[in-house]
């Protein structure tokens, strides 16, 4: 799966957790999930669970610590998908 394909699949997952005053068009690859998209930090764990279900992968605690931007998520996902073959 290409980085762009992963990004496209991530957008609807992230959209669910956006506050009402943030638009789906604000989601960029470089967006910081909590600082820029204003997603409640408690919801990061929920985004990860949704990502796990969507891509059939599992995040480790260390992956969670690295997760700040949409790009971080894309790289972690691509890495996991590559390893799972």
């Amino acid at each position, binding site marked *: 799966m290409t980085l762009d394909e992963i990004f496209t699949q991530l957008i609807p997952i992230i959209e*669910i*957790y956006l506050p*009402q*005053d943030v638009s789906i068009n604000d989601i960029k690859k470089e967006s910081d999930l909590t600082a820029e998209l204003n997603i409640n930090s*408690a*919801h990061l*764990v*929920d985004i990860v*669970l949704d990502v796990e279900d969507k891509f059939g992968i599992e995040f480790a605690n260390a992956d969670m610590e690295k997760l700040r931007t949409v790009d971080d998520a894309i790289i972690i996902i691509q890495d996991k998908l590559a390893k799972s073959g």
Partner: protein
Amino acid sequence: MRKRVVITGLGVVSPNGVGVPTFLEAIKNGDSGIKFHQNLKDLNFSCQIGGAPVVSEEKKLEYFTTLQLRNFNCNAILYGVMAGMEAISDAKIQPARLNSDPLWDLGIVFGVGTGGIDKIRELIYKTDEGNVRRLGSSAVIQSMASGVSAYLSGILGAGNSVSTNSSACATGTEAILMGYERIASGKAKQMLCGSSAEDSPYIWGGFDAMKVITYKHNDNPTKASRPLSETASGFVPGSGAGALVLESMENAEERGAKIYAEIIGGAINSGGQRNNGSMTAPNSIAVQNCIKEAIKDANINSKDIDYINGHLTATLKDAEEINNWCKALDREGSDFPYINSLKGMTGHCLAACGSIEAVSTILQMHHSFIFPNINCEDINPEINNLIDIERIPQHIIKTKINIAAKASFGFGDVNACIIFKKNNQ
């Protein structure tokens, strides 16, 4: 100088009516909200009936965002937020804007008995499966006792004391008195007070096991809850939420708010599980003292009380409650105030009963009527020996209520009594 405290908003989610207008019609008509529940039968409950509010998915979206409803599984928060926000809207209070200061003078006391039990079930299953990581962020906020007040505070931007109380079936009445004290002492100008109770086999099961709920009316649910009746055979479990906006009279007058009634006094006590009191039975002397203290606090004479909204759950204790009222007020026979029990229509809404019944009390005062007691065609003779049958209306009565008393009694031998006065302006 104590502040005078008035009621400026009402909200209710009751088994026999969701929202004040629907609930008002239901109590005027004597409509029952008790239904047969197939899941209770499937689970081998003795009592297979109960009172649960009917809330559509569309209705939920009027109060919650789709994000809030994701993984949402907590009726206490659902009912509490709906009733609370209806009361706030009725009082014409605007929530604080996002990115502005909270409303420093608005507080919340919203009680629960057991909250989030269905969420707790998910929590226990996932934990025991070794799958804690799959719980997500919702388990804590939906299972904490203060979940209802926390959700409401988030929607409103309440900046005063935001808390949760719990005193079994006295919870709702106690919540109102806690808010009343805070305003009377000048520490808040507005308090959203209420309580919430869930319908779940995991809550009702414990009462089924105790044999305190009726097993005799599974085929005739609307006749099952029989307060004051000779054939009362245990209560019917119920759920829902009631909410009231309390406000200092000066604040209400200043902003031109609609004033339903004034809280002129109240009392909270415990029988200490001594004498005839226990974990599950009230100490009658404590009940009488609580009522007497409320009357004294309100600075009225017991003869001034026009109407009593009883606790009256439809157990053998109903006669004892009437006896306690007679002794506390020193009134009996035809001199006794009018009395009714909402539980005939709703069942016993446990932690929510006090607040739902307080809403029913205020509505009766505001619209000058007394709702019918249902299912007591056969008045318990022990009760009839104490008070005249015409003091227990079985049809709606149109009459002015100037002063009303509302009491609730709970497991743990705890009591609460409020005295309301009609706003005559």
